[in-house]
């Protein structure tokens, strides 16, 4: 394998929400790397900071959220230090974002074609002919008849709207596409077909993808690596298959015990007792210790670092040896 510089390198990134009761650290010291053409899944429950992390990476945070520490290096340049003007040149052309709800992210009073035209013109002046060609090209890429360039978002089905969002994200063949639960509003059949299409496009065009979801089983067949987030921190990261086949962190193990399966023997599952902590007052030591079935005395006071396992990095004292 040729070692190349990662497309995206996040180092010690922390994001605070400034509230009346003080700063809430929604993302705490997250470091991760995404190689060229790699598909990274980030899973976690609501409130674990996964969407905030995405917004921080894409530099889309707005008050009361702000980046408190760390760096986001995209193709070697520090995005945190860039101002809006510099960002505008990079955003969408080199990396793009697919939001969770297409119904809210698309403009309801503009046709899909007009919205694509806006996006293209914002970055490079082009003739109507060129714009049309490119728009038709990306619509075909995502499997929508270009006739729908003349359609308004409400005239498309949920799956088609989500595809149109992806088409929009691909107009400039970016190197990185950041996706925030793009399939969560869809039915399983449409979800499966969209996931297959994303994977196919990724293979063909070669962009790297960061894909955030609460549904671990969704990415199980699609992502190369998987990062598991809990209470603002990454608790485990590793090759997707190894995380699924041999989860290390007690939280990941608990998550795996939370999904009923449609195949195999029917077994009683237990889930995870309790609920995620209030980030205004995160628990001392390991943030998972109040819910952890394998808790040890040191977990209550001492925050675990990442321990290296053969295929995984895991933030848990059980692996200190």
């Amino acid at each position, binding site marked *: 394998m040729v070692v190349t510089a990662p497309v995206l390198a996040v180092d010690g990134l922390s994001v605070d929400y400034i509230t009346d009761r003080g700063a809430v650290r929604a993302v705490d010291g997250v470091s991760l790397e995404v190689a060229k053409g790699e598909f990274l899944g980030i899973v976690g429950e609501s409130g674990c900071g996964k969407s905030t992390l995405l917004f921080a990476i894409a530099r889309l945070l707005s008050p009361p959220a702000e980046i408190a520490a760390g760096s986001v290096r995209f193709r070697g340049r520090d995005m945190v230090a860039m101002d809006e003007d510099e960002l505008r040149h990079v955003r969408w052309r080199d990396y793009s974002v697919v939001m969770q709800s297409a119904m809210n992210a698309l403009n309801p009073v503009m046709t899909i074609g007009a919205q694509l035209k806006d996006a293209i013109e914002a970055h490079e002046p082009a003739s109507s002919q060129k714009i049309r060609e490119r728009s038709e090209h990306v619509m075909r890429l995502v499997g929508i008849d270009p006739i729908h360039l003349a359609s308004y978002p409400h005239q498309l089905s949920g799956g088609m709207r989500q595809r149109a969002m992806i088409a929009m994200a691909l107009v400039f063949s970016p190197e990185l596409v950041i996706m925030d639960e793009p399939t969560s509003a869809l039915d399983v059949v449409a979800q499966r077909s969209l996931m297959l299409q994303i*994977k196919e496009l990724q293979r063909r065009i070669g962009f790297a993808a960061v894909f955030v979801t609460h549904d671990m*089983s969704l990415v199980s*067949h699609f992502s190369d690596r998987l990062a598991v987030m809990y209470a603002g921190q990454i608790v485990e990261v590793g090759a997707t298959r190894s995380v699924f086949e041999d989860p290390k962190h007690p939280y990941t193990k608990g998550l795996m015990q939370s*999904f009923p399966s449609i195949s195999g023997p029917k077994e009683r599952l237990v889930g995870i007792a309790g609920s995620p902590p209030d980030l205004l007052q995160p628990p001392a030591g390991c943030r998972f210790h109040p819910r952890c079935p394998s808790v040890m005395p040191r977990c209550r006071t001492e925050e675990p670092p990442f321990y290296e396992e053969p295929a995984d990095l895991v933030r848990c004292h059980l692996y200190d040896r």
Partner: protein
Amino acid sequence: MNADSAPLLETAGLTKHFRLGGYLSNRILHAVDDVDLAIGEQEIVALVGESGSGKSTIARLIARVYRPTGGEIYFRGRPLSAMRSRSEQLAYRGRVPMIFQDPYGSLSPVYRVSHGVLRALKLHRPALSKAARDEVAAQLFESVGLTPGSDFLDKYPYQLSGGQRQRVGFAQALASNTELILADEPVSMLDVSVRIGLLNLMATLRREMRVSFLYITHDIASARYVADRLIVMYAGHIAESGPTEDVLAHPKHPYTQLLLSAVPDPRAPISLPATSSVAEPPRVVDPGEGCRFRQRCPYAIEECALVTPRLRLLRPAHTAACHVATSDIGVPAKEQAATSR
């Protein structure tokens, strides 16, 4: 379920149409068409389907939120349309309560979480004194896993997590003389790590409080986890119905087969089909005759466009509405695997 006794609740030809557009519009949305289903005592029946398949409409029809356009619902053999008096309707609502999807929207933020339980007790069990109501409410909270119950009575919704709030919803549903709980996507808004707890609670309540559930969900894996029987809806019709494990092992309707192949299953080996089905469920406006799945169906024949398929018994207690599906009844078990797909 005891096969000899009449079911707890039964629908016959249940139909609900909605008129679309203004007064002059003749466009009719067929939300639910000709649905026959039965729920036995202490039985958990899962109603599975995509959004728009009519599953929530069925729950609302049973809850008497909507009046059916056609057909009838029988509760313990008695037609609901014959329930005229207010006291009868009140008693029915107490026996067949509903649990909602959104635990954040279904509890009023200005009342204590015991408010709904206490109101239901006052309404449905007027003989209880105030002190007795508090005691029963505390017991109900304990039975849904909010322990100690008396501590939870005075809490406000904002002090509870999503999973705890949904448990309050279960306690409310149990506060009347409950026999059948209509649970409309009760766990879909909860975090994955707490969902299983509520599914386990459903199984416990069925056993200990002797109630039945109509569990409405789009998540077929969770349906398998709790339900005895599975009913698969497609575009307002029942596509397939039968014992859960039998439907999953021998799906007869092509739609059920498609649905099962689409469920992400981390335990399954990696298999990425070359082509993906892009088609999506139809909007059932003035659908006309014929199978509603035929445009997406790989096995469609001419008959499918002409005649709406009726449910046929294809395996013991297992029916599907498909012209093409073959029957396994009388077929030796060895050969069934080959014929069932």
